[in-house]
């Protein structure tokens, strides 16, 4: 793997973020809206429930951790989509750039975007609602690590779908996580969900990460067993996403789908 090529890809996406104002929606605007929305709902619910309610903390930690998944997913997916929108895909495919280097470049850039996006939610939560996510302590590190890998994996699945189906699949860059969010119980325990959906929710690694975060928020120790299951599920998801995107790239080359982007 060439570190030089990885940096070049990351830098290319940095230029895009600088020059395309609409890209700041994902990084700044949605995080601000989400922090304001979920923080306000949390305050309202806390007033209804009375003193000692954890509504604000649960909602704000949920949305903040969801943004870890969202920002990491969206950086991989929109990074690839940018190449299709600017018809740069053929230029890239004829260079020595390897697939793993391209993904590593978008991930590297995504980490910067993540810091920005999550930083905005965290700052808003602290300034407007006096909620400090770092109160979770060091337990935040493994929680965020698992969510990052989930986001990258979902991003690769979206890239695979775009390679196979074309631009019609682009909506999934935003839409796929819209399914994951309610099913993962980001703001509530899974057992409040309709019975049938609970089975689906328990299969998702994100469900166990959000549950583990709530345990820590309530002042108890990090449930390593639950996080371990989440990490295992995430590992399986990551392997499946790499296999899927690799197969879709082979299909893309075999069927000459580059003609969609020239």
């Amino acid at each position: 793997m060439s570190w030089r090529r990885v940096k070049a890809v990351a830098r290319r996406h940095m230029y895009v973020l600088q020059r395309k104002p609409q890209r700041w929606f994902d990084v700044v605007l949605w995080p601000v809206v989400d922090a304001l929305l979920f923080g306000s709902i949390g305050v309202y619910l806390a007033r209804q429930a009375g003193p000692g309610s954890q509504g604000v903390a649960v909602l704000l930690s949920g949305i903040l951790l969801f943004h870890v998944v969202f920002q990491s997913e969206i950086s991989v997916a929109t990074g690839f989509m940018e190449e299709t929108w600017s018809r740069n895909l053929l230029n890239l495919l004829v260079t020595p750039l390897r697939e793993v280097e391209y993904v590593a470049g978008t991930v590297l850039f995504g980490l910067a975007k993540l810091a920005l996006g999550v930083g905005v939610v965290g700052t808003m939560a602290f300034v407007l609602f006096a909620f400090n996510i770092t109160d979770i302590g060091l337990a935040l590190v493994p929680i965020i690590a698992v969510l990052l890998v989930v986001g990258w994996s979902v991003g690769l699945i979206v890239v695979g779908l775009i390679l196979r189906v074309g631009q019609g699949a682009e909506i999934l860059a935003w839409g796929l996580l819209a399914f994951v969010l309610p099913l993962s119980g980001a703001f509530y325990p899974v057992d409040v969900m309709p019975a049938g959906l609970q089975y689906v929710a328990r299969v998702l690694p994100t469900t166990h990460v959000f549950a583990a975060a709530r345990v820590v928020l309530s002042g108890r120790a990090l449930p390593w067993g639950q996080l371990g299951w989440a990490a295992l599920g995430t590992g399986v998801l990551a392997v499946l996403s790499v296999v899927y995107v690799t197969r879709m790239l082979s299909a893309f080359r075999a069927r000459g789908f580059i003609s969609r982007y020239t």
Partner: protein
Amino acid sequence: MLAVVRELPPPVLRARGLVKRYKRVQAVNGVDLSVGAGERVALLGPNGAGKTTTLLMMLGVVTPDEGWVEIGGHRLPGARSQAATEVGFAAGYLPLPEALRVREFLHLFGELYGSADTDGAIERGLARFRIEHLAEAMGNELSSGQRTLVGIVKATMHHPRLLILDEPTASLDPDVAKRVRTGIEDLCAEEGTALLVTSHNMIEVERLCERIVFISAGQVVADGTAADVAARFGRDDLEGVFLHLAEEGER
């Protein structure tokens, strides 16, 4: 008396038995093609003859159903990344990413190709095609001619052994087309770069290339000098051959 046998340098590009089908269309049907070091070859044929699909298979962007491609001794697809360091590619129809300045675009690709001195290569490349003044322009501010020139600079900064150009002068004014042609000729002469070019401009092809490969219905139907190819089809020039093959294809 001993005969002196001079070994020819190995071809920079070798393709054998390339076949590509898209659903019900047979795009390429058994193309064999070699390009020697420093050789300048034109790949010609009517629309739909299979030129671009052939080029894309040689670049590793499209996987052949049958056959194989080797560039600089690197067999695709396994050694695609190494092979790509030996090739530069530009096409008249490819735009520049709009969010990048020309210098940033060239820098990106200099890094991807592993240029030894990316900044120096950018300056030399822009100077060769007399477009230094475009260095700070945004990609979407360029005319199609300027875009083509920048694309060729991008394709040549890493000193490839083979330059593949797909319709490099399509829709260009004659003066810009001449500048493109002159720049390519200089590059090939100075650096010994082999050239594989598709074009619909027969006069340009005769000036630029020493060997002509005609492709029709996905097959190579002629391979030789312009005079050889014209003679083989009983025509006066390449345009006559082109029109003859296009008419045959319509029947």
